[in-house]
């Protein structure tokens, strides 16, 4: 591992200045949160920053109510604390469920909300420095398309990259239209999800829309009363401590057997947490039946372009959407 300077940020402005300065002089400064992804990638030689700016002592470790019934979640809130928060569990059950579906107890105690969003979109080739990877070394090629891609993307991928974003937490956040609060060299700004993470296109090295020096300070979850009826369902190869093969976050607003409104997002299928807007549009105003759910899921997944070894994800995603929505209909 390359030696790096360690700086502990005490205020936002100096943190942004330190990170931007480190980036500009070629030393490759990066922010350090819980380190569960970054430290591992440094150990693997995938990333080699010259400066780590530790942002875990900044005052972003609280969860506050916003006007109208939403939540402002500090970027430094640990995943464990997010999932355990009474208002998260009551207002957005799918968010609490998604967080506890991710990683392990130890990792959730370390990982921050900001770091969870900013963990690298990745596959096994990205983490193996002996292999080409367009995300790690732009232009070097993508072995996954003809190699191991069973658990990689089926929607929105490019010739350059077929990796998936591994976060569970980001899936309900995309469904909820969460807004990422950012502090940058030019001051504060806000970016709604989806729209924070990028599809790979021909620049897979960029996972998000963040610019050098940008610091995520909070994630704002808008009020959505019907999200009290929501659920996260994750399908994986083993019962615990594994990435999603496919996951679904869904919320349903029902009236007299009809879908008045809904939110649906998919994990494990794309380079970003995938908001299923076509399925949502198809469902609004339709009967809350298995047939309608299957039709809506099929409309969303019509855009899938799977590779030979991950085509199973398309019917799997459809089935998991249908099952999750039926669970919500049947919920007390």
């Amino acid at each position, binding site marked *: 591992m390359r030696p790096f300077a*360690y700086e502990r940020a005490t205020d936002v402005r100096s943190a942004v200045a330190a990170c931007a300065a480190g980036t500009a002089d070629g030393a490759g400064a990066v922010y350090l949160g819980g*380190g*569960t992804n970054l*430290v591992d990638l440094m150990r693997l030689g995938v990333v080699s920053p010259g400066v780590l700016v530790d942002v875990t002592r900044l005052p972003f470790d609280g969860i506050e109510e916003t006007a109208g019934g939403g939540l402002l979640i500090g970027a430094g809130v640990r995943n464990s604390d997010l999932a355990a928060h009474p208002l998260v569990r009551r207002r957005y059950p799918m968010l609490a469920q998604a967080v506890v579906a991710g990683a392990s107890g130890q990792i959730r105690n370390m990982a921050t909300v900001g770091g969870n969003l900013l963990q690298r979109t990745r596959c096994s080739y990205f983490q193996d420095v002996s292999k080409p990877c367009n995300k790690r070394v732009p232009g070097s090629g993508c072995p996954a398309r003809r190699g191991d891609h069973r658990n990689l993307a089926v929607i929105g991928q490019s010739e350059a990259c077929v990796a998936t974003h591994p976060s569970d937490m980001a899936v309900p956040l995309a469904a909820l239209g969460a807004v990422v609060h950012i502090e940058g060299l030019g001051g504060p700004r806000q970016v709604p999800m989806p729209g924070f993470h990028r599809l790979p296109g021909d620049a897979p090295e960029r996972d998000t829309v963040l610019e050098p020096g940008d610091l995520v300070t909070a994630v704002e979850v808008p009020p959505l009363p019907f999200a009290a009826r929501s659920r996260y369902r994750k399908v994986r190869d083993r019962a615990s401590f594994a990435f999603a093969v496919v996951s679904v976050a869904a919320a349903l607003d029902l009236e007299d057997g009809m879908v008045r409104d809904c939110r649906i997002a998919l994990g494990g299928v794309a380079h970003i947490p995938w908001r299923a807007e076509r399925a949502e549009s198809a469902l609004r105003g339709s009967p809350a039946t298995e047939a309608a759910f299957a039709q809506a899921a099929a409309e969303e997944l019509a855009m899938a372009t799977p590779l030979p070894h991950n085509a199973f994800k398309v019917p799997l995603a459809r089935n998991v959407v249908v099952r999750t929505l039926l669970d919500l209909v049947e919920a007390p």
Partner: protein
Amino acid sequence: MNGEGNSGPVFADPITADILLSVNGDERPITVDTRETLLDTLREHLDLIGAKKGCDHGQCGACTVLVDGRRVKSCLTLTVTVDDREITTVEGLAADGSLHPMQAAFVERDAFQCGYCTPGQLCSAVAMVREVADGWPSAVTADVSGPAVLDDDEIRERMSGNLCRCGAYVNIVAAIKQVGS
């Protein structure tokens, strides 16, 4: 210095920091390389070899220690980041020469074979029981808005960050259940 034809990486000099590390109630002044993990500091510099190096990538849990009472992976924790925290290792669980109740339960229930994962299992279990008492939900908690009951499924799910190659899981679950319920 790398000669021609040897294209190995050239590393700059290490960057170090002088810190005070609080481990099991003792404050220890120490100079650490910023790259050093808490696991390596404990084992290589403080002679605390209870925490084990299994995968060194945060997957196996053998390195689990408590930081401010919470279970974490010491292999993914940079030592320089925890100089103002209180660290507890498996060596710090026993008090006044008597085993921690979780350690006693592991002995009583025969919850290990080779013992390599045991320090991590113990630290993890001690903190996990507290997480349940604090009402934290897990992935198998039927209603995330309510409290969890520490049954076998909850223990297995909550301990999934600790692997045991001997497969002593059945007795590990029994030992934790004995302490936690």
